[in-house]
C-alpha cells in the first residue's frame, strides 16, 4: 500500500463523509426519526471505520466503531430516542473532524476524547429509554 496515495484518498473521502454526517445530524436535530438521515450517518461512520482501520488510524476506527454501534441501535429502535443521543453524535463528529485535521496537518492522529469514549461505551447494551425525544445542545 502506498501510504501517501492512501492518506490522500482518506483525507478526500473522510472530509466528504464528515460534511455529510454534519448535514444529516442537522436533519436529525429537526426529526430524530428521519430514517434516511440516520442511515446516512450510519454508513458514513461505517466507511470511516474501514478506512481508518486500513491505514492504522486506530483512534478514527475505534471512535467510528462506537458511533456505528450506537447508530445501529437507533436504527433498530426507529430513531434517536434518548436525550443524550444527538449531543453525543455531534461530539463524535467534532472529535472525528479533529482527527482528520490532524492527519491533514501531518500530525499523529490524536487519541480519542476519553470522556466521549466513556459516554459511548456506557450506552452499549443500555435498555431503551422510557421517554422519547431530546434535542442536541449544539447547533451547526
Amino acid at each position: 500500500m502506498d501510504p501517501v496515495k492512501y492518506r490522500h484518498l482518506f483525507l478526500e473521502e473522510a472530509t466528504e463523509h464528515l460534511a455529510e454526517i454534519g448535514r444529516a445530524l442537522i436533519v436529525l436535530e429537526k426529526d430524530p426519526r428521519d430514517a434516511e438521515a440516520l442511515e446516512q450517518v450510519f454508513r458514513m461512520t461505517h466507511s470511516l471505520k474501514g478506512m481508518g482501520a486500513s491505514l492504522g488510524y486506530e483512534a478514527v476506527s475505534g471512535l467510528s466503531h462506537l458511533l456505528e454501534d450506537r447508530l445501529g441501535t437507533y436504527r433498530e429502535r426507529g430513531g434517536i430516542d434518548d436525550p443524550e443521543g444527538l449531543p453525543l453524535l455531534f461530539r463524535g463528529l467534532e472529535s472525528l473532524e479533529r482527527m482528520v485535521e490532524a492527519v491533514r496537518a501531518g500530525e499523529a492522529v490524536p487519541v480519542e476524547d476519553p470522556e466521549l469514549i466513556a459516554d459511548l461505551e456506557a450506552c452499549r447494551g443500555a435498555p431503551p429509554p422510557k421517554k422519547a425525544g431530546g434535542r442536541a445542545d449544539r447547533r451547526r
Partner: protein
Amino acid sequence: MACRVLVADDARFMRQLIRDIIEPEGFEVVGEAGDGREAVEEFQRLQPDLVTMDVVMPKRSGIEAVRDIMALDPTARVAMVSALGQEALVMEALEAGAQDYVVKPFKPEVVLETLRKISEKEE
C-alpha cells in the same frame, strides 16, 4: 485469461485498495460500482467472472444486490466484503448466494486467496 472482476463498494478508498491488491496478481478489474443498485446494473452490463460486494451500501445493500444478481445468474460468483462485527449480515449474504467473504481491514494475501478460491471453483 485474467479473471474479470467487478468491485462494488461505496467507498472509493476501498475500491482502489481492492484494485491495487488484485490487479498486480492477474485479476482484471472491469468495473466499479458505488451502491447496490449500480452493482446489479454493472453486473448485467459487464458480465464479470467475479464480484466483490461490500455489505453496507446505499440504495440497495450488498445483500439485496447479491439476491438480485443470483436471480439474474445463479452461477454468479460473489465475495462479500465485510467489517468486524457483521457476522450475521455475512451469513445472510452467504445464504443469498455469495460464496465467501473477506473482512476489513484487508490482509492482501487473504483477499487474493479468497478470490482465487472462488474463481477456480467448479460450477
